[in-house]
């Protein structure tokens, strides 16, 4: 039964198209169904980021003089401020973690195969913006650790031929990391990156609705009939159970392990020992550390940057490259994926030793 308001709104918005679609939407049930839950988990953490982010900007000051002090104030004076910052920090890690899991499941299940190439490509951009969001947010507390991480991170693009110097200058707002960089990163973090994420998210989710849920390669090859359950309410209720669990874990971690805050960064001080970036950049950090100064005729870091660049481009076009997923080529790509995962995990563990 529709109430008067509902039909009044529907006459103007035409929302019944969407509600009808959601009522008819189904989700396949098979032994790999669990990966379908990772997408909405990302949305959950993204929503938490937006809400806690809105709250943090009420007190945060993106200036050289005020940044560290304002975060200290959030942690000590603002009522429940420490929980809000802690949740924001933990939820960022959770979001990145689920983005990575979501990506790996798509990669290994080869869900990017025709016609879902653009879903993958928009996803790669979402990954980049998620990482950028984490990277820019890391600087905002403005302590020694975040300053060094930003100096290194913004210097990496410098090795890209031609454009690199300008990328570094653009990110830093000048030659060096200064107060201008902090203000600029704040702008990236709270307005520019979120706008891009929203647009890409819109495209990504639209494509998924348009094309329906992807089936695993094995199920599709057998052409067997896969069991399906309605999206609403059956699947959504199951998702809500997952959300509840994740929220429990998130809040427990946020309350018992709040992020630290060091003294304000000094632009002229030497880098402190034991600096390291956020966990999702550790594999890169360790790679940069072990690469020698010169490999053949190239500086080690230039080689690393060029490799990352090439890997990124290959990664973006993967659906077009991996166009015969069930054949030998597809299997080689799967093995490559597994090798890269092992490499990243091994490097991360090494950096923690």
């Amino acid at each position: 039964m529709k109430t008067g308001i509902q039909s009044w709104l529907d006459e103007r918005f035409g929302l019944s198209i969407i509600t009808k679609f959601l009522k008819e939407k189904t989700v396949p049930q098979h032994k790999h169904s669990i990966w379908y839950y990772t997408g909405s988990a990302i949305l959950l953490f993204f929503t938490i980021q937006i809400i806690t982010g809105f709250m943090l900007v009420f007190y945060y000051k993106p200036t050289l003089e005020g940044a560290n002090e304002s975060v200290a104030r959030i942690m000590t004076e603002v009522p429940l401020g420490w929980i809000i910052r802690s949740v924001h920090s933990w939820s960022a890690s959770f979001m990145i973690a689920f983005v990575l899991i979501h990506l790996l499941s798509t990669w290994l299940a080869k869900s990017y195969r025709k016609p879902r190439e653009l879903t993958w490509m928009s996803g790669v951009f979402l990954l980049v913006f998620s990482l950028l969001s984490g990277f820019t947010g890391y600087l905002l507390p403005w302590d020694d650790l975040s300053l060094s991480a930003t100096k290194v991170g913004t210097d990496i693009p410098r090795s890209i031929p031609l454009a690199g110097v300008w990328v570094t200058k653009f990110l830093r707002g000048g030659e060096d990391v200064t107060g201008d960089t902090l203000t600029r990163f704040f702008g990236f973090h709270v307005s520019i990156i979120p706008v891009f994420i929203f647009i890409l998210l819109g495209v990504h989710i639209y494509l998924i609705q348009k094309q329906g849920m992807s089936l695993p390669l094995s199920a599709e090859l057998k052409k067997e009939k896969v069991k399906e359950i309605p999206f609403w309410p059956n699947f959504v209720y199951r998702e809500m159970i997952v959300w509840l669990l994740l929220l429990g874990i998130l809040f427990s971690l946020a309350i018992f392990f709040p992020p630290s805050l060091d003294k304000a960064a000094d632009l002229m001080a030497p880098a402190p020992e034991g600096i390291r970036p956020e966990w999702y950049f550790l594999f890169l950090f360790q790679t940069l550390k072990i690469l020698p100064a010169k490999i053949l005729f190239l500086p080690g870091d230039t080689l690393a940057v060029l490799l990352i660049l090439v890997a990124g481009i290959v990664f973006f076009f993967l659906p077009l490259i991996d166009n015969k997923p069930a054949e030998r080529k597809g299997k080689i790509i799967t093995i490559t994926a597994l090798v890269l995962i092992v490499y990243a995990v091994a490097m991360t563990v090494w950096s923690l030793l």
Partner: protein
Amino acid sequence: MKLKHSLFTRRQFLNGLLGGWLGALLASFLYPVIKFVFPPTREPDQVILPFADFRDMNTVSVKNFLWGTKPGILKKKNDGSYLAFVGVCTHLDCNVSYLEEQRKFFCACHDGWYDENGLNIGGPPPKPLRRLLVSIEGEDLIIKREGGERAEDQ
């Protein structure tokens, strides 16, 4: 000579004209945007410090000074002359520290090492620390860029 067939149709010509005009318009909007996001470089041509502050420094430790937005490091050699460096690692731009006992410069970010003359001797740094020219004129210690080089070339 008159061509029998025109190379493009009237529509193509007009579309090209319109497209070109739109492109030029867009470029004229983009230009100020790009100019705006890159602030001017602030690296100084020279820094003048009071010599009195550095006259009595020993040859074991180093002293810092401000080189624009970067840390500068001044070191006195055994023969009494001075060496000046930009105290920034040539690997990925972290500030270096001077370890007195080992007489070496060290970058904690990725374990980079330089000897006391700023020469890269270990770890990932690809180049020696950037040197600056030091001269003493009366009561002033003047630190200059080496031979008109620009920061971008580093």
